[in-house]
């Protein structure tokens, strides 16, 4: 797969990836910090929970992926399942 003649691209270098991830983590932290500084409108009482949206997004997606992984055990068949 790796062609030695090919110049390494931006995303091929692990140090670039880790830099990007660090920027991303800082942005996440800033968004949570903003929750305590900015007064946002609250339409529903659950929204009073600090960083409600951040927690909901993170937990929701982890559950989504883990449940989907379990679904594979029941639902996954071979690629030609319907052609057999």
């Amino acid at each position, binding site marked *: 797969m790796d062609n030695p003649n090919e110049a390494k691209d931006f995303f091929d270098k692990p140090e670039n990836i880790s830099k990007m*991830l660090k920027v991303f983590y800082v942005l996440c932290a800033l*968004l949570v910090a903003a929750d305590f500084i900015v007064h946002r409108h609250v339409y*529903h009482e659950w929204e009073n929970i600090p960083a409600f949206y951040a927690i*909901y997004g*993170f937990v929701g997606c982890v559950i989504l992926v883990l449940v989907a*992984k379990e679904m594979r055990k029941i639902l996954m068949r071979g690629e030609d399942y319907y052609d057999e």
Partner: protein
Amino acid sequence: MNSLMMLPPFIPLLVGALAAIFLRGPLRSVLMLLTPIWGALQLWGMEPGVYWAFEFMGYALEPVRVDKLSLMFGYLFHLASFIAVIYSLHLKDTVQHVAGLSYAASAVGAVFAGDLLTLFVFWEALALTSVFLIWARRTDKAFSSGMRYLIIQVLSGVMLLAGTLALLGSGKDLRFGYIGLEHEGLASVGAWLIFLAFGIKCAFPFVHNWLTDSYPEATPTGTIFLASFTTKVAVYAFARGYPGTELLVWIGGTMACFPIFFAVIENDLRRVLAYSMINQIGFMVVGIGIGTSLALNGAVAHAFNDVIFKGLLMMTMGSVLHMTGKMNGSDLGGLYKTMPKTTILCIVGAASISAFPLFSGFVSKSMIMSAAISEGYNVIWLLLLFAAAGVFHHAGIKIPYFAFFAHDSGIRVSDPPKNMLIAMAIAATLCILIGSFPAQTVYSLLPWESEYQPYDLTHVLTQLQLLFFSALAFVWLNLRNMYPPELRSTNLDADWFYRKLAPTFILRIAASVNGVYQRQEQAAISGVKALIRKSYDTETGQPKGYFSKLWPTETMVAWVAILLASYLMLYYV
């Protein structure tokens, strides 16, 4: 515009389809490009009202009714067909050009239909024209998938007709306006039949598999047409016939949530998009079910945006398929190196469907969410929030990540032909324009009166928190190797019932009937054989019966003797 010059709205696109039949080369391309523009300009000149009304067998028909709702979808369908035509200009396949434009014409005809009979005609035309876009792939898989698609779509049409007749029978007229589910007797049967007919085309849960089955089997260009029209006509039909029907809120909530689980484990990236289409339609159905003017506006605005951003995503995946011949996440990756333009366009589509601020999905999705919370649908609001996070996860991250980044597949193909790039660039520009200037673009077309300001601090901040932390979940799961890898597989869904269970069931019955028949036949044959065997003595090599031992002349003499003897007896009696 001069009223003499005016034509029914579906005519220009139909002319485009006819041009594609008879013309070749640049002239065909020019005419195909001009017809959507001509059609849209014509709509611009049409005043709201009913046109060409006439009586047919005593029923008042309104083949063309123009109002703000139908106009909005009319513009949308012309825009979508314009983009799809550009995207498919490089093709020499007449079947696809003709099918694509006549399919678009049917969709336009359906949204301007003022009565249920006209709607039925275009409803069936949608099915009959679009199936050729699936068959045009010319593989066995595409053929059988297209067959299943056609059967289900035609079934929906038959239910629409049956429902229409039931409504007529209960004394209602043919006008297609608010129908609702609150009827009694025959009218109730009719209203439910029409509801289900719309529901099939709208990909309701358990009848959604025609979509996930057939769209990924269609040609790279055909899918762009397919993704734009059928389901959006159904959304339009619900917005017209069943606004404020509470059942729709719950159906829509289900539609928004369950497909994202399938999308996470699906390998075929166009099938991932097909699941995410159901998820987006779920948002629209919730909006229609809530039925306030904000919710309805949100639903139709979201339909408008979805056609463009889902079209864009489908186009980028179509480009990948066109250039590499592969569509499975497990076979792709690292394409950004040689397809940089497609990569960027895909990311714009991904940002739009994920509803990032300044991209088109943001303005319409937040309208529906706000309507849900202000009408007190708390559970639905939580479900939609989960679905919004989930769609970012599978459509926003998974699609670009597994196609263009992830592990390097070693595939080195260039960006697609220019016409495909132009079509994608137009869609991407629209996504950003609509997202950044909603008031000047899509909001000005909205049919109902309501004020909404998507860009305030609360909405932007909360949406960014939701999306960034969904992305954080993806990063965390990936770094810990907990993210499910792309695997070559088929995932069972509701279509298992008619693709596996029913055929197996029928095969079993057929096999057992056949078995019984063969056993009977065998028994009869062996009975006859046993009879023959019993009457033959193998040791002496002679038959066992007395008469069989004699020569035919001897037998005859014996019978003549018996005959004469009985004659003599009778004579005396």
